[in-house]
């Protein structure tokens, strides 16, 4: 038997409203409720509802032989709760079948792993608690934002007790090796690595409706043939993709739902593959070799590196400015500050600032609220400036309170100052 592992990413960012320089200091309402709820409703209608229903039908139809996996970001879950709680219910119905695994990730779909171990761990814990609360299962396998993986990120994840982690099967790291085996982190053999078969994944996620693709139209028969043509000794095929592939990236009219409806039956009857979740896959397979990725690898764009989010001056300046606030935020202990801090870390904000528009521009434009990366940057920095001022003000008040507590005499001196000020005015 060989294993076929389907994992879908579900994510929505809290997009920022147009926040002008003159808004700084005047209001702290950064997120565009209207835009975010509109987009969520649209995606729910095109994707989440019909796709969840189809998955549920397929699981029931195949009597539990069809298995799938989700990773849902904390910001997406919060948007469901805010704007469309029915979406949560439909995921819960899937969870209740016992054929669906939920993965761990950073709560804010953030790039925290690259900058702060403490923040990273905090967010992973927060996300795990949320998943357990909503779906009744504690995630055992981790997937990082945009599949960003490096040896040292694996080490952090291993230290948190996860058995496995998902990563991109990028050519430049695999070299001659095949992504269709189980590998492990060289420093922590207990952390197993499941690699994305990007050709077969992208055939569905990106090429399915492309009429200039020689393989168009893609049928489930053809796809199973491809699966069958993989050498018999290769043990697993990991198909990782955005969930929005179904109905949003690939519209209903492309036939993507028909393809998905037919595929499990064809796989189960016409191939040596069984469907597994990542945890099962790790349990069933023997890891064949260590796999080292000293530099971060992601699943984005042609480069499969970090250049979609970081690397140009706009992104780096914004990113550094954001994380310079970490200690201050932690000192604040204020709910709305903590919430905004999470939402502002979402990787999408940095994605909008990407200036390499040539090969992957179309993907970057997807639900991008900005006309240009410069607009995205200015808007983000305006918000970040207001956020910084709020934090500084809160901390100042805190210091004052402490001063008063330590030295009551300070109160009278402060009062005196206040009085002399009003007199002067």
């Amino acid at each position: 038997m060989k294993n076929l592992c389907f994992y879908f990413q579900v994510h929505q960012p809290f997009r920022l409203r147009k926040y002008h320089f003159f808004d700084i200091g005047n209001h702290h309402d950064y997120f565009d409720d209207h835009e975010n709820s509109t987009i969520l409703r649209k995606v729910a209608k095109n994707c989440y509802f019909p796709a969840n229903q189809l998955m549920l039908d397929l699981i029931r139809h195949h009597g539990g032989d069809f298995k799938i996996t989700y990773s849902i970001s904390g910001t997406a879950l919060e948007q469901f709760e805010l704007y469309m709680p029915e979406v949560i219910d439909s995921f819960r119905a899937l969870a209740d079948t016992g054929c669906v695994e939920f993965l761990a990730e950073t709560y804010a779909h953030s790039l925290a792993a690259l900058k702060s171990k403490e923040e990273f761990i905090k967010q992973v814990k927060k996300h795990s608690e949320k998943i357990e609360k909503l779906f009744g299962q504690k995630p055992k396998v981790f997937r990082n934002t945009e599949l960003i993986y490096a040896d040292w990120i694996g080490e952090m994840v291993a230290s948190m007790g996860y058995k496995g982690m998902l990563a991109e099967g990028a050519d430049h790291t695999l070299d001659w090796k095949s992504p269709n085996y189980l590998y492990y982190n060289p420093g922590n053999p207990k952390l197993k690595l499941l690699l994305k078969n990007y050709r077969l994944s992208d055939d569905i996620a990106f090429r399915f409706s492309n009429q200039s693709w020689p393989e168009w139209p893609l049928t489930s028969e053809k796809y199973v043939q491809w699966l069958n043509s993989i050498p018999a000794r290769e043990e697993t095929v990991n198909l990782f993709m955005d969930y929005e592939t179904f109905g949003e990236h690939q519209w209903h009219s492309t036939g993507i739902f028909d393809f998905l409806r037919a595929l499990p039956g064809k796989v189960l009857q016409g191939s040596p593959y069984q469907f597994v979740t990542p945890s099962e896959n790790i349990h069933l397979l023997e890891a064949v070799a260590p796999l080292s990725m000293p530099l971060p690898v992601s699943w984005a764009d042609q480069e499969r590196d970090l250049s979609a989010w970081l690397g140009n001056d706009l992104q780096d300046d914004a990113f550094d400015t954001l994380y310079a606030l970490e200690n201050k935020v932690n000192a604040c202990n204020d709910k709305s500050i903590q919430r905004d801090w999470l939402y502002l870390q979402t990787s999408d904000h940095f994605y909008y600032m990407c200036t390499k528009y040539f090969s992957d521009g179309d993907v970057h434009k997807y639900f991008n609220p900005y006309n240009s990366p410069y607009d995205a940057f200015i808007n983000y920095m305006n918000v970040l400036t207001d956020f910084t001022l709020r934090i500084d003000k809160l901390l100042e008040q805190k210091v004052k309170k402490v001063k008063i507590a330590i030295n009551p005499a300070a109160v009278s001196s402060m009062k005196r100052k206040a009085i002399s000020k009003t007199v002067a005015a």
Partner: protein
Amino acid sequence: MKVLMFGWEFPPHISGGLGTACYGLTKGLLQNDMEVMFVIPKAFGDEATGNIQLISADSIQVPQYSLANEFLSEKFTYYGLNSELVPYLDNEQFRQYSATLTKTTIQKRESTFYSHFRFSGQYGKDLMSEVWNYALVASQIAQDNSFDIIHAHDWLSFPAGVLAKQISGKLFIAHIHATEFDRSGEHINQHVFEIEQQGMQLADKVIAVSEFTKAIIVNRYNIPADKVVVIHNATEHNKPEHATYIDKDAFPEKIITYLGRVTFQKGPEYFVEAAAKVLARDKNYRFVMAGSGDMLNRMIKKAAGLRISSHFHFTGFLKGRDVDRIFAMSDVYVMPSVSEPFGISPLEAVRSDIPVIISNQSGVKEVLKHAVKIDFWDTDAMANAIYALTRFKGLSKMFVRESKKEMENLKWGIQAKKVKELYQQQLKSIQ
């Protein structure tokens, strides 16, 4: 005395200082008991005319026979009607304009005997042909009206002034608010340069808005120095109502402001560099670049590259109340222009009680003695001055107080009187 005046824009439809200056001067002339007929290519109907007789060139009927005017092509080298040259536009604006103005001005409403020209009144793709059509209309206006003297503002209306002079035989004053060298540095547009030069050669007298501009006119255009008279610009003296703005306390830091188009001429990159120098020493500053232009994205990138974006802000283009608002927040105003014929905004800053730092490469430095003056490239001096004006209260207070006194004498009524005296002198000389 009646003046036939040619301009290109009039408030509120303005792209820069030219329209505002024309408006101020015209009002000043009216105060000095002059009559002014002010011609622009296209009036929108909502201009603040008051007592000014505003004439829209597209309302003038031009007889067919006068369209074949030989004089124009003799005196001016005639460049193609569809020339796509756009002196005042940056790339971004050009794209927008070419999209909207692909075929505009050449359309004439023709009848057998008369035709009307359509003008956009913008700085679009067909600017050159508008300039020539405008001159044709000017000749018709000169024929149909009586007046004593002709006065034209900047190269766009020089052919109109020259043609009106040819038709009427009256004196022609060419007024230079900006030269091609100010707009484009050394990479000048040769066509524009020649129109400017020929206009000034054919004029009876040239008015320059500053000694700085006069020097360019004499050195780069070879106009005799005694033909050029300097009359500085002025500002309107109504105080902005910024007392109501609450933003003053939005930031605990000192606010240093650049306000103007973000183009080569204005020297924005020197402001960014000076900001980085100040912030390297002291984080208690915020820098604001208010305006847009073809160098804006480059400046955003530059600030990010210097890792100062957390303290360097971009507002985009501001107008009206938002300008007053940004002034109300500011502690120092900086104008690092590479080449600024006059530069009215430092005066507006002073009026809002803000001390100013201006470049030596500007005309306004001739009227503001109590401002910090630096060379635009000297970012060390700029950083120093920013620090001094924000840290030493006495200094900035004194500068504001003294500058305001200087501005007392810089009213359009007073400046227009100088223009009137020039007219009288010129008219006397030919009697």
